[in-house]
């Protein structure tokens, strides 16, 4: 698949936001000492900023953003529609959570639990958008969901550690440790999915694509020589060396460097990890081999 940058930003930004919120909530739930409202209010604002940026990024993916409201209508069948509902719902809950902390309204745990549930729901919706596409075997697997959750939580928790460094320094070590654990877990789960995807054999072949049983079939014409939507949307179009470079960036920036930095320099760790996640998401698209590409192998 051709990585769509709007989608890379959308999923990584809201993922970090969701992870950050979950971290905030667990701080409130588990913290032994009381924390300043600023930690929660500011944190909630951060979550809302990330989510909003993600939402704005997603608009760039649409041909008709003015009709974006329609995207909520088919929630019965479409994970994309569900995401379209879950994201604003999550944001509303986060806003309420921050507002409650700010105004001292109380009920923050109840609001927080609601927001956490919505955050998890949003993780599921976002991940299932990809995992529900059966023809993309690289995506259509529970690991997609696991990775979206774990990587979102890892980046969010890394950011929470950095945020705590400014507003609740005593929480920072625990948060950094949690970020370390989550990042390590992410390394594990993403590695498993990378290994799995590398070893996948495609369900469809040129033989099933055109229905001719012969081991040697070579495409000579696509019927269009100046390219088409099908040659643009489903190929990343980059060289193998470039793809390997992205994979290296994925491994080092998402996992290796943050693991070594998060305990001491969590902000730097987050910046690197976020950049790494962009590479991770790019790779997520690029490694998905769409069966339609069987029809777009050669031309003359």
């Amino acid at each position, binding site marked *: 698949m051709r990585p769509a940058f709007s989608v890379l930003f959308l999923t990584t930004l809201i993922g970090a936001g969701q992870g950050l919120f979950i971290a905030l909530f667990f701080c409130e739930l588990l913290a032994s000492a009381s924390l300043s409202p600023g930690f929660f209010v500011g944190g909630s604002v951060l979550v809302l900023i990330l989510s909003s940026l993600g939402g704005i990024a997603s608009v760039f993916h649409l041909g008709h953003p003015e009709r974006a409201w329609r995207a909520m*209508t088919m929630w019965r069948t479409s994970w994309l529609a569900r995401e379209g509902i879950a994201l604003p719902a999550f944001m509303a809950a986060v806003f309420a959570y921050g507002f409650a902390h700010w105004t001292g309204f109380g009920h923050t745990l109840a609001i927080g639990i609601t927001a956490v549930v919505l955050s998890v729901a949003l993780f599921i919706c976002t991940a299932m958008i990809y995992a529900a596409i059966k023809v993309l075997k690289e995506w259509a697997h529970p690991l997609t969901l696991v990775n979206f959750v774990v990587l979102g939580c890892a980046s969010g928790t890394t950011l929470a550690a950095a945020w705590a460094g400014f507003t609740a320094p005593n929480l920072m070590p625990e948060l950094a440790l949690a970020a370390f654990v989550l990042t390590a877990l992410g390394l594990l789960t993403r590695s498993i999915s990378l290994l799995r995807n590398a070893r996948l054999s495609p369900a469809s072949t040129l033989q099933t694509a055109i229905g001719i049983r012969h081991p*040697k079939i*070579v495409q*000579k014409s696509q*019927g*269009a*020589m*100046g390219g088409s939507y099908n040659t643009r949307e489903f190929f990343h179009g980059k060289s193998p060396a470039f793809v390997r470079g992205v994979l290296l960036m994925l491994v080092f920036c998402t996992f290796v460097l943050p693991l070594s930095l998060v305990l001491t320099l969590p902000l730097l760790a987050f910046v690197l990890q976020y950049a790494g996640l962009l590479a991770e998401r790019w790779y997520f698209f690029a490694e998905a081999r769409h069966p339609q590409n069987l029809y777009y192998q050669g031309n*003359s």
Partner: protein
Amino acid sequence: MPSPIHDPIASPMPDASTEMRTTTCYMCACRCGIRVHLRNGEVRYIEGNPDHPLNKGVICAKGGSGIMKQYSPARLTQPLRRKPGSERGANEFEEISWEETFDILETRLAHLRATDPKKFALFTGRDQMQALTGLFARQFGTPNYAAHGGFCSVNMAAGMIYTIGGSFWEFGGPDLERAKVFYMIGTAEDHHSNPLKSAIGDFKRNGGRFVAINPVRSGYAAIADEWIPIKPGTDGALIMAIIREIIALGLYDREFLARYTNSGQLVNQDESSQEFGMMMRNPAGDILNPLRPHNFYWWDRLTDQPVEDHAKGADPMLFGSHVMPDGTPVKPAFQLLKERVADCTPEWAEKITGISADTIRRIAHEMGITARDQRIELPIPWTDWWGEEHESVTGNPVAFHAMRGLAAHSNGFQTIRSLAILMSLLGTIDRPGGFRHKAPYPRAIPPNARPPKGPECVQPNTPLNGAPLGWPESPDDLFVDEKGQPVRIDKAFSWEHPLSAHGLMHNVITNAWRGDPYPVDTLMLFMANMAWNSSMNTSEVRKMLVDKQADGEYKIPFIVVCDAFQSETTAFADLILPDTTYLERHDCMSMLDRPISEFDGPVDAVRIPVVAPKGECRPFQEVIVELAGRLKLPAFTTPAGTRKFKGYTDFVVNYETAPGSGIGLLAGWRGRDGEKAMRGEPNQNQWEMYEKNGCFFQYHLPPSSQYMRNWNKGYMDWAQQAGLRRDNDPIVIHIYSELLQGFRLAAEGKRPGKQPPDELRERVATYFDPLPFWYAPLEDEQSDLKHYPLNALTQRPMAMYHSWDSQNAWLRQIHAYNHLYVNTHTAEAAGISDGGWMWVESQWGRVRCMCRYSEAVEPGTVWTWNAIGKSSGAWNLSKDANESKQGFLLNHLISEELPANADGRRFSNSDPITGQAAWYDVRVRIYPADAGEPEQTSPQFEPMEPVPGMGQRKMGWQAWFAGKKGEGK
């Protein structure tokens, strides 16, 4: 489910005014009936006319893209004159009025006509109005006229017409409705393409067996039941071997050969005689037609003596050797064919063709056994020319089709003659399941028109005494001077190419440039891209077009180009005449020219404008009629000296081949009230009646006249009465061609009359063999085959017609550029990668292009789609368009002339009999391009700029959707 907002059924413009008009397609030469739908006056949809006999509602990719031709930005809209002071080829023009244009032409042409009419040369490309353009040339008095047949498929026409009196083409074809097996030899996708596609589809659905013999498996060969790859130019060897096998096994249709061919006619075998090799003539026999005496002999096997051919109760010997009562040794023609093929064993052919002897035998057996055992009998009584009544029409269901694949080789004429003979041996001529004629064919062998006979035929201010083109019957019909030298600029009908019935358009520019045989003054080209894909040796031809004499005058002083589009050629014009598209003009597919007849009777058709001409565009027909009127050409002028025809439509209605002949350009709705068919006085409402009938006229012959028309008395009488034939004598198939022998005798000095120049005697004697034979293509003899081991071919993609369609926004998406297809092993051996840049080189030049591996081409052949490559900026494409940067022409590798002889003489690279351009003969080698070379095709030419009057081409995007949106930016 919520209901949709966008109604998928509602018309986008419900209030628009709509209209549907019928006319005839011209996106290729197929000429399908179309229905053009207009919305608010704009062309919105073009569909096949379901009522039309030719295409029965279907339409091809090109026909379906007519809209994008109509609204192409490459259209010329103004008469243009080369800017004073600018160089020819610099593509700098200024707009002028039609009045000025006609003044220029009238002044120049009137002067030429009054001084030396042959200084005016008129050559037309994809012309479907030769009845008019030929008449114009004849009336002007210039012999220098032809259409593009010389580089198209004249070998196909001549090879078959000189054998069976008809040809594949619009003049005949395979009867796939009743055939059981079908052999398509060589590429044959172009002519009659939609009907043939439909027929092949039905044939396969009905369980027919389709065998494709072709170096390349593309096109129709793709769906063949068997593909037999063959080396290019060797088809003749294959066919000779099949003929041998058919004769050897007795699988020939003896009854057919004996009665309907000249197989049983006795041939003079007295080598000392001036009549050696000619048919014995029976002084007591019935001459039938003094212009073409039929008084032959048979050797009757029942009485063992010579008898009048077709004598009642006689049956000719086909084999053997006899002595006439006067002592003349004779042999039946079929014996001579048998002797000819004696050594043409399948093993012999295997070495030449690359097809195994077993395969050759197998397909020969398939043909022969199917013909013998699957005989068709239709309960249709008919009477043959000799008065014998037949209770039924019979046929042998073996069909063939071939076109350019056989034709475009220098051995094509004899190869095609061998094919026609094989078809005759199998008894398949104008019989069900085999080959069927289409009116106006069958015609006499050869048809009656003869070329002018000498320089005296060309006189100032005088029409030629006949058509400029024709069918020589004997050496005396050649158009040569007293020294035997050519009179035509293209050297047609000279000893170099005696039977060049369609002329040699491919040599006109070279000959005129060289002044050989003489220079011309004005060259008028219509709809032919002679500075690009229609010329061989394109790069050099472009130089000739701008070459000057010492005095600064161009070697070809004045070039007029008429075309609807800006092409590579318009850049070399001194005067450009903007033609209309096919949707903007009247036209006729005339019985006098190239009609669209069906097997069961004549059909002709017209075009009627469905939209108004764009800008100042004017149909070439109108230009010709106007010029003819201004020049006061006799056929276009009343006795009082006034103009006879108001315009083209008036001309079509009122022109008669001879005063009162009742034969005109259109055969339908003749007679004062349109009550007559084929022949009748002019009908002033003829166009309206055609329009009412969907723009075609179809005549159904009675079943008794639909078959065996070479010898069918009923048909012959009708055809003569209808004006399709001058005479009504039978057309006996020439298994043995005494016509060719006549030329050979002249070359051997054994025949009185016109003699070839000495240096050509051996050439003529060699190739004018009365029996078919295979010889290697001429270029092979003059090429280092070790250095250039490969053949290079082109084929026409079904979605493109010549160079016409690169300005078509839809079609160019399908073929934006081209690769050279090379067999995978061949390419790997040469170190060329799939998709990599490579050179393909002949002794004439080299081209850089991209390689595409293919398993569907025989290893000794490389090929590409023709005419995709364009010169940068031509056809109003952007200068970096794929067509110019990745597309290429193979024409740069092909010469219009063969290498010089020892005496420095250069012959046309053509068939030595017909002058058919041998553009499939070229030999090449291939090698990879160097890593540092630019990744674009070579050669490249100076980019062309748009000329005045051309539309702005849409940049970025456009959407063809009138009245709503989508004009593009």
